[in-house]
């Protein structure tokens, strides 16, 4: 598959920060191990965020740490308890909120929902 080409299943290959990365049709990393801060920065710009704030990085790192330790994404209540912020604050940090914004930038699997 050439760069930018979309497979029959919607998988897309891109080169970001010198690395070949596969994304699903919604733009989520297919393999969390492909994630890097550089890749997150590039993707955040595409999301309309010029520079990721410290709060945004804290959420991204929390998601990654939780995923690395538990093999699954945290529940909303676990994020809230872990960071001490309300869901209203957390959801307003990224376009698309936690599920479609923060999770995508953190390299976690596509949460899959009824809107997709």
């Amino acid at each position, binding site marked *: 598959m050439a760069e930018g080409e979309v497979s029959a299943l919607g998988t897309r290959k891109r080169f970001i920060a010198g690395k070949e990365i596969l994304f699903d049709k919604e733009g989520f990393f297919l393999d969390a191990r492909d994630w890097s801060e550089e890749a997150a920065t590039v993707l955040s710009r595409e999301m309309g965020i010029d520079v990721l704030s410290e709060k945004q990085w804290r959420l991204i790192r929390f998601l990654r740490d939780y995923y690395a330790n538990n093999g699954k994404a945290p529940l909303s209540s676990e994020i809230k308890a872990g960071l001490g912020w309300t*869901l209203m604050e*957390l959801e307003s940090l990224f376009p698309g909120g936690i599920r479609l914004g923060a999770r995508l930038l953190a390299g976690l699997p596509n949460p899959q929902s009824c*809107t997709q």
Partner: protein
Amino acid sequence: MLRKKRFIYADNAATTFPKPHEVLAEMLDLYETKGVSPGRGSYDLSVEAEDLVDRVRRQICGFFGGGDPSRVIFCYNATDALNLLIQGLIEPGCHVISSRLEHNSVLRPLHHFYQQGIIKLDLVPFDTQGFIDPDDVARAINPKTKFIILTHGSNVLGTIQPVQEIGAVCRAKSVPLILDVTQTAGMVPIDMAKWGISAIAFTGHKSLYGPTGIGGFVLSRDLDVRTTRFGGTGLDSKSLVHSQRYPQRLEAGTINMLGVIGLSAGIRYLEKKGLHSTYAHEMSLIHRLRDGLSSLQAVQLYCARSLENHLPILLCNIKEMNPEQVSTILDGDFDIATRAGLHCAPLVHQDLGTSPEGGVRFSLGAFNTAEEIDTILEAMAEICRFREGTNPRA
């Protein structure tokens, strides 16, 4: 910030929760004492189990106004029932009518056959209030129309369709009408015989207060469905041909005995509680919710002007907010469970203009209270304030 109270469940259109204690208790009790394979053995307990299943068939037949208990067929859920009905009725070259209000449980099986060129398909629209016009159905009928399959109550908009009028149209043109009563079974009375309905497909775990994993359909005597699943029935084991007697004709393999017990207990629970009073209670709450939400400027409601012929379901959005985020905030900050997205009914959202993100659906059940509605309204107001940047906590 609102203080957390108890969990508020407003996703009853997905499944009612919690299940009544007496339903769960009866399931455990009967399954412990009679949970053998019904109708397969000649020992007393197996015969008793079969009697129990037959009693439940009679109960369901009576509940829906069907004419023949042997034509009550148990399935896993409404989707399974609808698949069996559709696949057992379709013939190459036939024409089927459905609507743009349907759930994917109807749309996807039909689309599968349509895409393969096996059937012709017409989907009638719904009007600005969320209702199908019986005249549209009448106009869509042609000599090749094999059946019409419609939702009785929309799982997105909550509108209850004029099925008696549509039934009259179908009777006049001798076309079978099949209803998906997933959302209405247990909410409003359903009378197949009186309304001229040829089949209804239901699930047990919504407003019938049974468990998940049990559903089925009821066939009138004027409609026969081909066997599309084959296997053991407990009858005529020496033959390699699947029995064509009802209900075995459409049931292959051991049925979900625990589910059948729970379904029966759920219906009895509902009848004891009173179908009409339960519905009236839930509708009073949805009125309260509709009135409260309509006073919030940032809230966009998608509902009919009148809540007559309506289910306790309300769809809305907060302007400029993704419904998934609203639902996540309701859960995480306020302990309120709702369903966001397209609700497996993509064409409804397409026509409402809410695609691809959908909306936030509140769906109420017997255990919701007026105080809970007020808490939901306070939560929605607080989210609106936050969105407008006037959150007092900021």
